[in-house]
């Protein structure tokens, strides 16, 4: 069983047990435009909820990807640095950035579910 939560900075985290897979949303990739560079964190890196965990750059600008939860990175998506356009093509699938072992499942309660995120997007428009 898995569920997906969202942040106000437009990251998603798909939760399976203690492991979360993190990426940026369809909305985020559409705002960034053509992605030309991605830097993913190395396994073992400790990250905090809301802390910088990865980098994504479009032709025009660099952006940080923040970790939705605290924990230890288990794996960065090794395919992304050589194919950053994957984030444009499949942001909520093959374009995932990293997997994290969560240290505090309670942090998930502060994140939005799909319905709440869709409502949040509607308010941004």
């Amino acid at each position: 069983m898995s569920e997906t939560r969202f942040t106000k900075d437009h990251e998603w985290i798909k939760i399976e047990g203690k492991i979360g897979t993190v990426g940026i949303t369809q909305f985020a990739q559409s705002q960034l435009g053509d992605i030309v560079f991605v830097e993913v964190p190395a396994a073992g890196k400790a990250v905090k909820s809301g802390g910088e965990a990865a980098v994504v750059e479009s032709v025009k600008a660099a952006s940080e990807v923040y970790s939705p939860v605290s924990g230890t990175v288990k794996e960065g998506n090794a395919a992304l640095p050589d194919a950053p356009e994957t984030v444009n093509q499949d942001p909520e699938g093959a374009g995932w950035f990293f997997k994290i072992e969560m240290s505090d499942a309670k942090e998930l309660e502060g994140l939005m579910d799909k319905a709440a995120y869709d409502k949040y997007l509607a308010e941004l428009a």
Partner: protein
Amino acid sequence: MPDAAADSLKTTPLEALHVSLGAKMVPFAGYNMPVQYPLGVLKEHLHTREQAGLFDVSHMGQGTLVGADVDAALETLVPGDIKGLKPGQIRYTLLLNENGGIIDDLMVTRVSDDTLYLVVNAACKDGDFAHIASKLKGRVTLTRHEDAALLALQGPTAAKVLAKFIPAAANMGFMSSRIDSFEDVPVRLFRSGYTGEDGYEISIPNAAATTVANALLAEPGVQAIGLGARDSLRLEAGLCLYGSDIDTTTTPSEAALNWVIGARRRAEGGFPGAAKIQGEIKNGAGKKRVGIKPLGKAPARGHTEIQDGQGNRIGEITSGGFGPSFNGPVAMGYVDSKFAKVGTPLALIVRGQPLPAEVAALPFVPHRYFK
């Protein structure tokens, strides 16, 4: 999405066209401008290098300068050879301050013995025209052309496209200008641009701008291009962006723009900051604008610190990003002149980490101007 900030922005005559084409509009130099269309910056950039891109640059400042000794008068403000311009010839030059700093870069076209046509940057235009009018008071009359839009048609098929409407466009020399008509519309054509490609800038009465733009966009291979791709195209072409790569704190020599100062002007001087600039031409300046190629994949943006191999700060990047045609990161910036030779290793401090880079020859993508 109109809001208070957007309401205070100026618009070009093509505003409604941009919106109808689905452009993403952003504030730029006080104007609401298209940064990209649905095609996106990357594909817009590549399209311009492969076919033809149409840019709205109506925010730029256009003006006519008239006076019996108009060329000699303008030479007191710029270091370029204006007296030597033949009718219909265009020159890229610089407005300088008394310290030799660059107030703006501009295009000067000789229309006739007593008339010059100026095109200056949007963000500088009010200041430039006030400066020119005040410094040359009594010698020249300046008329601003706020009733004129400016389109740029750039790319390898630009000449073929424009010649369908204006046959004489095809044989114009690079950096030349002529008056003609586009269907019934009087236009001033310039064979010039800001992409490194062949192409034209077309000055049109505001009322006809949308008609002309639509006629060009209806031609095969012509795509509307936003400011995002305009910036990546000019960066690959090694062309300066005023306010980023050059400003009042940089001199022509520092900016690697000595080539804009012809032999007569170097010898005679008579432009603002001449003594300082003549000294820098002879002895070299302390810092120099160079091309910079990051050796990895990460782009280095403007204001990135440049270090030598020992961790000493030796300069700063002024423009940087991803070059879609170069297919990698590209940048330019200023380094201590000791480090300006092509191939010199540099370290760029990106997100706190030194990334390897080297001084690279400009342009990153060869110019393909009409010869």
